[in-house]
């Protein structure tokens, strides 16, 4: 009997060993570079985080009995004449889409091994991203200082407006800021020949950075639709 249980333990140990070997063996899934697969999985998890923010925004907006402030008026901006509804947000949207376009081209020129154009396009992307964050800082300042919006209340309507706004746009703005730093580092490495020296001239990192950047733009598409337009 003792003999039997010993054999059983050995069997389990051997089984675990096999499972461990399977888990750590050099196997490739999805047939893409691991960096790209990992970036996609990170973006998937980020999708759930942003979804949680947007869904909680939906819940508080449905459940409040106080009218929701009209974003079209709250985010209107006047250039001397009548206020134009949502104009700053529209400009921010166009800035972000432009940056997505320059990033897509940067990936393409990276694979063509055209370092100069890749660096220029990535620098343009980072610059547009920084512009977006700057405009967001302006928007936050205007809302906090001039209009008295706070996370716990505001003069325009439902108290939950501020909390949803700061949480959602703040988290997105943080992603854009991180993206600007990320793109700057990758652009610097392309320019300085880092990938030629260390990666045998493989520029897939540019595409992986591009995935992150397009995702930031993608999230903005949803924020624009649900928070600003709804």
């Amino acid at each position, binding site marked *: 009997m003792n003999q039997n249980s010993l054999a059983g333990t050995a069997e389990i140990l051997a089984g675990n060993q096999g499972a461990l070997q399977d888990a750590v063996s050099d196997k490739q899934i999805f*047939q*893409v570079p691991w960096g790209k697969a990992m970036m996609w999985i990170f973006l998937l998890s980020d999708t759930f985080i942003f979804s949680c923010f947007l869904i909680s925004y939906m819940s508080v907006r*449905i459940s409040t*009995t106080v009218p929701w402030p009209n974003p079209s008026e709250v985010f209107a901006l006047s250039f001397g004449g009548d206020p134009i509804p*949502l104009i700053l947000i529209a400009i921010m*949207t166009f800035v972000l*889409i432009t940056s997505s*376009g320059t990033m897509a081209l940067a990936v*393409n020129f990276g694979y063509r091994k055209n370092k100069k154009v890749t660096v220029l396009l990535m620098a343009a992307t980072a610059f547009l991203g920084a512009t977006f964050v700057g405009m967001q800082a302006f928007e936050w300042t205007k809302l906090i200082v001039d209009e008295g919006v706070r996370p716990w209340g505001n003069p325009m309507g439902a108290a939950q407006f501020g909390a949803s706004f700061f949480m959602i746009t703040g988290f997105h703005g943080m992603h854009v800021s991180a993206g600007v730093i990320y793109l700057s580092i990758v652009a610097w490495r392309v320019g300085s020949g880092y990938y030629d020296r260390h990666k045998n001239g493989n520029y897939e990192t540019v595409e992986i950075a591009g995935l992150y950047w397009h995702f930031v733009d993608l999230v903005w598409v949803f924020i624009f639709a649900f928070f600003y337009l709804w």
Partner: protein
Amino acid sequence: MTATEGHQQHPLGVYFWVWGLLFVLSAFSYAVDYYHLQGYLRWTLILLFMFLKAGFIVAIFMHMAWERLALIYAILVPPLCLLVFIGLMAIEGEYIELGRLIAFGPAPEIISTHH
């Protein structure tokens, strides 16, 4: 074409087309607000333009259209769970609103069903 090496090289024209489309769709989204469209027409158009933009970004800019099916499934299927989550929280939200109306009555000053 399926990229087996993860090597994504496509003609530049595709990117310029999508880029242009994204601008046009964004302009349309903005127009929905600018021309004060309301009700179901507004919500339908907002969602339509949103999904078109999101689709083009994921499919072309993020190269998902050229990836292998295993990766496409791994990334695009899990977010479908969110539909259940959205449904649950929408029901919950309506229930809380109803509870608030019954217990505390309508909000002072403005009585509105718009939320």
